[in-house]
């Protein structure tokens, strides 16, 4: 029963810490869209607590309301009481998933994605090869020309249109080495977290990350045996699988004995940084998990400190920045990326109005809740258009795809491009 599962999974102490002041509401995208108390963090916590207190049964409305949450965690930095809303919503989703009776095909898709695909990098790469074949063989052109995608909903067609070219080989294969030496004096030994999607769809970004790290004085280890971070699992109520993945990552990075663990995706980084919470009940791994969590850094934190902007080439363009929610609210990194952009000679940094608000991508939210997601995206693109920027920078693959889709959707193709922060820095900092 869902009720029992919720009572078991929910941290009642944390529920009690919400003092219902409502300061989270202006930061919450779904509350702003709907104006409905239940669709706000305060409301959702009240619903969770009502279930835990036996005031209400967790019915379909309850489940729908929990699924409507983007999980962007914009409510956390503004919460006076410091409530870990992200933990509460994940506990709720885990309980929902534990008892949910999905139709057979949803079960099959979830199993395929969460058990057989994301945790298995080789399979993702095989899929990447298929995608690459589709993109390169002329099949994509033919399909588009013939209008064969008419049956897809608009948001999926838009995603198809902006899908970057997939990579067929893993990062370690690309570098033909697992350890890339630092250029110049070695300051740190860092472990590169390559990510699952990043390594297939954004390998150029991963390659640039390694190069910039090396140039910044880091010996970069592409730690073998690492797997998907488990963020998509945890957000979708599969914390069990997330824990399994976490144990593997903690073990292999610990083995590699690195000073820092570098992520270039806000979504992954926030998950990695919270492995200590995820594995808190695991007596065997807890200590190593603490070790791991304390070493996780976003690439912008390291480059901000170690890169020499004086050597950068001039880039006389207007640049704006859309924050990754989990980078900002989960990893608490907000100034570093902006500062890096500002340091680019010749560039004009244009602040994006409400650049700290979720773009609607939210992992796979845009695929599951297309209506809310496209509402948020359209509002976002309105603000983006006003910046008249040439380059829209972000720092997470999901956000990057959503921004590319947004540019396409807003008819800004050719006038503006969405770029990962690392790729932008790679442009102005040519190979030594």
């Amino acid at each position, binding site marked *: 029963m869902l009720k029992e599962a919720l009572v078991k999974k929910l941290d009642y102490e944390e529920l009690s810490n919400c003092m219902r*002041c409502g300061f989270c509401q202006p930061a919450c995208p779904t509350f702003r869209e709907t104006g409905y108390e239940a669709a706000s963090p305060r409301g959702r916590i009240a619903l969770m607590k009502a279930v835990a207190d036996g005031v209400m049964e967790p019915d379909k409305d309850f489940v729908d309301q929990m699924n409507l949450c983007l999980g962007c965690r914009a409510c956390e930095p503004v919460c006076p009481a410091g409530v870990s809303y992200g933990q509460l919503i994940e506990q709720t989703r885990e309980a929902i998933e534990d008892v949910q009776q999905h139709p057979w095909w949803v079960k099959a898709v979830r199993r395929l994605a969460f058990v057989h695909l994301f945790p298995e990098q080789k399979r993702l790469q095989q899929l990447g090869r298929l995608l690459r074949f589709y993109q390169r063989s002329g099949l994509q052109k033919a399909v588009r020309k013939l209008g064969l995608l008419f049956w897809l909903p608009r948001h999926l067609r838009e995603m198809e249109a902006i899908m970057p070219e997939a990579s067929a080989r893993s990062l370690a294969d690309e570098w033909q080495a697992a350890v890339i030496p630092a250029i110049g004096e070695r300051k740190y030994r860092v472990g590169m977290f390559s990510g699952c999607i990043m390594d297939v769809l954004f390998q150029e970004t991963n390659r640039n990350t390694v190069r910039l790290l090396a140039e910044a004085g880091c010996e970069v280890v592409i730690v073998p045996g690492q797997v998907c971070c488990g963020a998509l699992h945890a957000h979708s109520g599969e914390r069990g699988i997330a824990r399994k993945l976490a144990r593997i990552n903690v073990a292999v990075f610990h083995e590699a004995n690195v000073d820092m663990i570098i992520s270039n995706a806000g979504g992954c980084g926030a998950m990695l940084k919270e492995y200590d919470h995820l594995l808190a009940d695991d007596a065997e791994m807890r200590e190593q998990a603490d070790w791991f969590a304390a070493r996780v850094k976003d690439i912008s934190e390291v480059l901000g400190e170690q890169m020499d902007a004086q050597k950068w080439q001039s880039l006389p363009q207007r640049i704006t920045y859309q924050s990754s929610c989990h980078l900002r609210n989960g990893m608490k990194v907000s100034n570093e990326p902006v500062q890096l952009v500002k340091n680019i000679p010749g560039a004009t940094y244009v602040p994006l109005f409400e650049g700290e608000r979720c773009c609607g991508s939210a992992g796979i939210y845009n695929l599951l809740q297309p209506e809310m997601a496209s509402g948020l995206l359209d509002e976002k693109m309105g603000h983006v258009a006003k910046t008249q920027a040439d380059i829209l920078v972000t720092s997470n693959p999901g956000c990057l795809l959503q921004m590319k889709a947004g540019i396409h959707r807003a008819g800004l193709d050719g006038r503006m491009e969405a770029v990962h922060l690392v790729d932008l820095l790679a442009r102005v900092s040519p190979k030594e």
Partner: protein
Amino acid sequence: MLPAPIRAQLRAIVGEKHCLDSQEALVAYSYDATPMQQALPDAVVMPGSTAEVQEVMRLCASARIPVVTRGAGSNLCGGTIPLGGGIVLVLNRMNQIVEIDEQNLTITVQPGVRTVDIHQAVEARGLFYPPDPGSMVISTIGGNIALNSGGLRGLKYGTTKDYVLGLEAVLPSGEMIRTGGKLMKDVAGYDLTKLLVGSEGTLAIITEAILKLIPKPQTQRVMLAMYADMAQAAKSVSDIIANRIIPGTLEFLDQGTIRVVEEFKKIGLPTDVAAILLIGQDGDPLTVDQDMDKIAAICQKNAAVQIKVATTAEEADEVMTARRSALAALSRMRPTTILEDATVPRAAIAPMVAAIQEIASRYGLQICTFGHAGDGNLHPTCMTDARNTEEIERVEHAFEEIFAAAIELGGTITGEHGVGIVKAPYLEWKAGAAGMEVMKGIKQAFDPNHLLNPGKMFAKESRQRVVVQRA
């Protein structure tokens, strides 16, 4: 559950989407920001216009259904808890700024406009709406008016009541009245505008308001002054006023609050000082500079151990952080945070703070005090745990004594949060028996069937006034 025909009629009035009675909706509108208060309504109704409010009210009057009007639900007195069931009337859809009149210096708003949106709209035109309650980023103007909200600028600029010039309101009968207008002078009959301000949704439903605006001050500056002795901080406050300076901000933190803020924020506050004053002035640059110099000299004279005058925007932000973080820091200590607002005449601040500290230690509770030193409005804040019934009982007794102490010093049980549920048993201490009768008479005249916000303001029985024993 409402009877099916009533439900159907409500849906016909406001539309299906705006009349909810799912479990989810009932729970979501069963609470506000007040700790330990919750009650489920029978339905949640979200009208989009004054006409719809009137129709809903007519229906509820004929069927004798209680109506609790609600904005953001950010109040701290239990003001929007639907104690007797009935409907929660949510006015958030009525959220338009109707007009900004630069000739008459007024803004006309619907009740669901957020306070902060009013600030932004008028400040963009060089105008100023001073009331700034702590919850202004979420609170609605309708709620501010219903509770006569205060804020940090109370000393110099007054509170919500000083800015409401006119109202449109729906009576419990469904009739609509208009009071006041874009008028600085209006003595035509009883002042119903002022009567409705602070009436806590018990007399009428406010559906539109005309607010007074003033020119926006050109500049503002802030400073911190730290004291080894609370009495010297209080003396500084009195001396500043005695020197004919009215600061725009005059806030204070006691030692307990300072320690908790420093522990949480690590901003380098000395934890051995007894009190910190945060003093700000706004106006034209020349006067502001002169006032700040004079204030610094007064603080110096009163043995301030350290004075920090902010010279840049960043420094000003740093200075403000101490006060801004107070509630956040305190609320992280324990699960339940009870924030009260006992208020005394400015000159009685030092004895009041001493009384609070004495009461807290006698009951073995952690009560920290911060607040608006300039207007005597203090926020004794108790960190506790609602699940510990024994401790909560001690908390209640302690606050009872704090209210009594405030009244003894010529103060009041609530300066800006309102009576609602939580202070209803103590209202008679302030208003007196005859005063209560007058208030009840007013309620009777507006709402003879007691449909609007039942159970608020008037308790079933008043508490016996406690005798304060102090050494």
